């Protein structure tokens, strides 16, 4: 199989995506995944739902670049990035990253890396609906720091 990037409005079928990674070859011994879901709070505010906007075309190409960078840095057999857009409720999945590799450290690190780069590079924006109205989510300085931690030579 290999590597894929999807932007979709539908729910993410976690079991199916995980099964595809597991079936991606007999040399696979480790699958690490990350699943981001809508929390009921952000900073100090109660969240009711979120809506996600993106830059169609650029999002996909940025995510492919990130996946390619992960392939260049670690020995991985297959990788999937799926990001939802549109309206999502508390508890729903926002993003799925799954990596299949022969060894666990490669799988863990590349998955962690992809999330950090996705957070800082993919043109996606979240708007939160809360009891006081709606607001665009602010970007976090910590995400910039995490992303910089992967600069060559620092891990």
């Amino acid at each position, binding site marked *: 199989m290999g590597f894929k990037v999807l932007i979709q409005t539908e729910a993410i079928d976690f079991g199916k995506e995980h099964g595809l990674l597991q079936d991606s070859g007999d040399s696979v011994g480790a699958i690490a995944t990350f699943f981001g879901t809508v929390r009921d709070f952000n900073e100090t505010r109660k969240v009711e739902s979120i809506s996600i906007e993106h830059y169609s075309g650029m999002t996909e190409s940025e995510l492919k670049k990130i996946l390619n960078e992960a392939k260049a840095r670690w020995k991985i057999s297959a990788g999937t990035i799926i990001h939802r857009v549109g309206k999502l409720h508390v508890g729903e999945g926002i993003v799925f990253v799954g990596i299949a590799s022969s060894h666990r450290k490669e799988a863990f690190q590349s998955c962690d890396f992809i999330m950090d780069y996705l*957070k800082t590079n993919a043109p*996606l924006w979240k708007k939160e609906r809360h009891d006081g109205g709606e607001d665009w989510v602010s970007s976090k300085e910590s995400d910039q720091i995490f992303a910089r931690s992967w600069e060559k030579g620092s891990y």
Partner: protein
Amino acid sequence: MIKLVFFASLREELGCGSLEIEFNQPLRLSALIKQLEKKKGNHWGKVLASESVKIAINKEIVVNDELLSDGCEVAFLPPVTGG
């Protein structure tokens, strides 16, 4: 023709998702922003020149004051918050 697109909070601040401007001669990004400011008001200049705003030409982030060509798409992106 150059297509301009504005996303998320930028779109709301400017009250504009996209607009097209006529292409008369090659111009740099900085000249484009000045032109918009003149046409649309100071607010536009201030918003688009903000340090936190990233610019993509044809869906690729640029960091320099690039020369724009006919038919290109210039996107103004506020800090991203996906994931």
